[in-house]
């Protein structure tokens, strides 16, 4: 088990938090996804990919915390194929200081699950010792919404998921996170180190300016392998098939509540 404690006084007085931000390379949100003919997955070859939108928000938050002097260093990490480097360069162009690429061999890529990713991230946290890990709340390809939570559990760190605001707590010794939950907004204080996952309204990500795109080329990008980190990528699940969602059938309009109840009874949905 890995424990890292900041007992020091004001966060404001210290040289700032060290933040680790996760970014995943996913199929671009605007692409019309197609299922492969053999139904084993979706077509990814030649399809436009970009950074997971929630991860863009996470990167933006880390950069803003640096600009506010709450954070001193921001490091981006991506677990994925060689092309994940492009995703990391985007993060660097947005203002991240350096990047880490955990390269996954193609054969194991399709079977990679949040449990594996969270174990890899936990290992990296052991050596990098961040004060704060910010991840997107979920990836738009698998919608798992698990990695942040699993990572916090593996590290035994507090977690604040679905964050719509991150700021220092009243006494500046913790982080005050506002979370978007079903009932509304929940505000909690978490001690650092902690895992936070970003939700949609946390911020609006900047686009990388052209000078920063050129500067990103010179920022350090380190490569690692799952073997080096000693993590086993054995799949725990097997995908049986992937299919298109059923074509949406036309609905019917009803005039009144009585009509609605009548129709529901007809269909045997209500007794």
């Amino acid at each position: 088990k890995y424990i890292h404690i900041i007992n020091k006084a004001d966060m404001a007085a210290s040289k700032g938090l060290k933040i680790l931000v996760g970014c995943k390379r996913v199929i671009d949100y605007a692409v019309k996804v197609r299922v492969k003919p053999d139904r084993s997955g979706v077509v990814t070859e030649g399809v436009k990919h970009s950074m997971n939108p929630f991860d863009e928000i996470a990167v933006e938050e880390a950069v803003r915390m640096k600009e506010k002097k709450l954070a001193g260093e921001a490091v981006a990490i991506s677990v994925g194929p060689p092309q994940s480097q492009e995703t990391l360069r985007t993060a660097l162009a947005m203002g991240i200081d350096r990047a880490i690429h955990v390269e996954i061999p193609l054969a194991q890529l399709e079977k990679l699950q949040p449990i594996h990713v969270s174990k890899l991230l936990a290992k990296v946290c052991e050596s990098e010792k961040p004060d704060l890990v910010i991840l997107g709340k979920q990836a738009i390809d698998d919608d798992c919404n698990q990695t942040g939570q699993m990572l916090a559990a593996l590290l035994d760190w507090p977690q604040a998921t679905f964050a719509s605001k991150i700021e220092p707590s009243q006494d500046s010794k913790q982080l005050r996170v506002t979370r978007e939950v079903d009932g509304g907004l929940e505000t909690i204080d978490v001690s650092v180190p902690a895992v936070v996952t970003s939700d949609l309204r946390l911020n609006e990500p900047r686009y990388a300016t052209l000078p920063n795109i050129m500067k990103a080329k010179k920022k350090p990008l380190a490569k690692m392998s799952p073997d080096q980190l000693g993590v086993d990528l054995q799949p725990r699940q097997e995908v049986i098939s992937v299919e298109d969602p059923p074509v949406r059938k036309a609905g019917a309009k009803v005039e009144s509540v009585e009509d609605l109840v009548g129709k529901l009874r007809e269909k045997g949905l209500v007794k």
Partner: protein
Amino acid sequence: ASLSFTVGRSFLCRPVVPYSSVSNAMRRSLSSASPMSGSDASAEPNTDKLFTAEHEAMRSTLRRIIEQDINPYVDEWEAKEIFPAKQLFKKLGNAGLLGVTRPVEYGGLGLDYSYSVALAEEYGRVNCGGVPMAIGVQSDMATPALARFGSHELKEQFLRPSIAGDLVACLGVSEPTAGSDVASIKTTARRDGDDLVINGSKMWITSGMQADWMCLLANTEASVKDPYLSKSLICLPLDLPGVQRARKIRKIGMHSSDTAQLFFENVRVPASYLIGEPGQGFIYQMLQFQEERLFGAAANLLGLELIIQETAEYARQRKAFGQSLLDFQTVHFRLAELLTEVELLRSMVYRATAKYVAGNDVTMLASMAKLKAGRLVREVTDSCLQYWGGMGFTDEVRVSRFYRDGRLLSIGAGADEVMLSIICKYMRTLPKPPKK
């Protein structure tokens, strides 16, 4: 009037050396791909390596700005017949998009021309031709001579703010009686003490109603007989007494771009506002034509692709005589022909860009690309509009706007006939000018 050059006018055939800002890394990556690496500058560079991850990243940034800050407002700007250049150029300037090939000392990125071409292609995503045209003037057409030959003070005063998007620039070359025949412009700028006094008029000035300053071509050397050596480029602030923005010209297309006619009556500027050497203005203008022509060709590629795709989608769902319009062979075959031509033009643009970046003169290729682009835009938009039927004739669809906007390409920035003359010059088929 025809542009006929004899072999004697060698300065127009002189190989143009582009800015020393061609990065060594780009040179290496291009030349290492060819068998005669590095030693033979005219060896065909490998255009597969033309665009790097950085080019793509810049296109992504531009794409976001287009989707957020431009396209949602295009219909409104087209209707108003003007777009807010100051506001938009500031946004582009903040992103670093207006000075990609300009010197780093003045806020530019100092990159080579391949970056301009990559961005030019992305501008094809804008839902009209007027806004990209105006941006092209700001970033690529009004400032190359200033960047290359202007004094430090002049660059601080005009170049830096134009790159930052704080000043709107325009280019003042064409006149009511002189379009293609640049040598016969009549506007004068005569020396009077420490000033230059400007008299004359300019026509067809893109962004002329909004611009803060103009890069003006005028006759300065009264004693010089040769019309190619009697002109100079001058930085002209447009808020000076004597400058009259006479009218906004109403055109059949490019509505969102304000096109102006201006008059100058005894307008005084300091003589130090002259760019580079007096008498060299015409030459300076000629030098940047290769870039201007490649930009014009590159900027239309994506728009043409999108129109072809959109037309296919429309034809797919449009029914006629019991089947979808797209299923008629004449329709899907024609769209395939048109897309083939677009790809051919793209290959030529990339090839010319790669050769230019490697240090070659690409006047002939750039002129060919411009000629082809102007004609292809007319062909594609006309054919596609036909398949939209009655809808194609309305304001409610994009194809009609591109039909109107696209017609300008064969006229502006070097008319088709001028491009043909240049190509004939290289083919040595151009007749000698008649003896006067």
